[in-house]
């Protein structure tokens, strides 16, 4: 369906699973298409020490969440909050058509909403 990079990541995501330790949980559903992700974040002093996810959804949203976790690991929450959506989509390993934007942006939007709710340093409220 998609290229090998996408399909490999979909079938064997690197960041899938529930870690033993985490300080923030973000549980987000895209109700319009039934996608669901849970982000488990181990945060220390505004830095994302570890981030993993569980979820079920389309190939684009699951691969995007895995890629997002890769991108976010070791970075400041503040920095991740500021990711530019159009840059993110532009750099995605497969072309994102307008109808699939929400799928690709699911992890970023989930992260923003979830971190916005959590009372943590680096929070851009």
């Amino acid at each position, binding site marked *: *369906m998609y290229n090998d990079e996408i399909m490999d990541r*979909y*079938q064997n995501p690197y960041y*899938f*699973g*529930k870690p033993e330790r985490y300080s923030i949980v973000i*549980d987000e559903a895209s109700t*319009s*298409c*039934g*996608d*669901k992700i*849970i982000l488990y974040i181990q945060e220390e002093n505004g830095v994302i020490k570890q981030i993993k996810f*569980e*979820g*079920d*959804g*389309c*190939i*684009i949203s699951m691969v995007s969440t895995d890629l997002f976790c890769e991108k976010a690991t070791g970075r400041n929450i503040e920095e991740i909050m500021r990711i530019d959506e159009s840059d993110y989509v532009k750099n995605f390993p497969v072309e994102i*058509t307008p*109808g*699939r934007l929400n*799928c690709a942006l699911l992890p970023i939007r989930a992260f923003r909403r979830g971190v916005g709710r959590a009372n943590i340093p680096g929070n851009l409220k």
Partner: protein
Amino acid sequence: MLDVGSIRRDFPILQRKMDGKRIVYLDSTATTQKPESVINAIAEFYRNYNANVHRSVYKLGWEATDCYEQARKNVADFIGVKSEEIVFTRNTTESLNLLSYSLEGKLKKGDRILISSMEHHSNILPWMRLEERGINLDYINLTPEGFLDIEDFKSKIKKETKIISITHQSNVLGTINDIDTLSKIAKENDSIFIVDGAQSIPHMPFKMINGIDYMAFSGHKMLGPLGIGVLYGKYENLSELPPFQRGGEMIKEVDFHKVEFEDPPIKFEAGTPNVEGAVGLSAAIDYLKKIGMENVRSHEKYLTRKALDSLSTLKNIQIYGPRDTEKRGGVISFNIRSEAIKRKIASGNIHLDGLLHSHDVASHLDESNVFVRSGHHCAQPLMKYLNIKGTARASFYIYNDIDDIEALVSGLEGIDVQ
């Protein structure tokens, strides 16, 4: 047999090539394409007849009014009712909302409304809003094959059931409900019987039956333009209903603290109406009449049979809805099972269904210009009932042919790989 080649030539959009290839439009359940005659009728109205309707004393105003009222008559004739029983709305959703607001006064706390588990949101949400006022909303169960469970229907009709509102044809399962039988059962209980005809009026011969109090449908799903819908109501019912919206056109007389409303249907058409929409819908009806609704229906039965047979050869397909083309319309919902998606999940609230996501299926087909719908099709309660997140959905109309079915099946073969 329809001459699909000649029909296709009437639809400018179907001449379009994308990436040098023909487009395979399989989403007529969402909206249909428009023939040249409809496009021309709209342009002709603006070129020659445009003026505001109903209150003009000058010649152009009469002509515009005449265009609008002729369109109303054409719609009325098409379903076998009187002109004054046809209210123009924006779409099926607005027609059903009109009923929800205008019938509200007839309901009291503890009354019940009965709908089915296969309804589109447009025949759910207008009724769900009344739950806030102490009205109970009941849902008829379905049989495993995707028909309404008639015994369940009968058992859910209580003396408090004041309204029964059912789709004539499911926009997901394709199931054609036996409206005649349902209306008789509804009338034995003196319930108001409403039919959502959005998916039936465009696709089959239909003449109004006495047991139907109200019926809603949309112009854009039957070759007409967007933004024009229809509500049929028996004249005596419409007469006693209060208006839905208030404002221009819909009054006989307004005083500082008093108003006398116009008679139906104008009472329900507040503000300047969508005249171009009505004119376009009327041209669409002329086009359909020329083809003949019997022919429309038999063409769709033929395509649906072919599609069901071909799709069934795929190893991993799951098709929803009845298989008997006598009892279903030309809309096929399906999913592709995938063994690749096996994950261990610790969280209890994630449900893995082992299906490729319908958006991925639709995106894959899109690459070969095969356009199908994906997702919940505005029928989330039905998706929950079926315990799935969504489906891909291919739907057919007069301009589809066997080549389109073959393109669909061959597109799916690429992902039917296990």
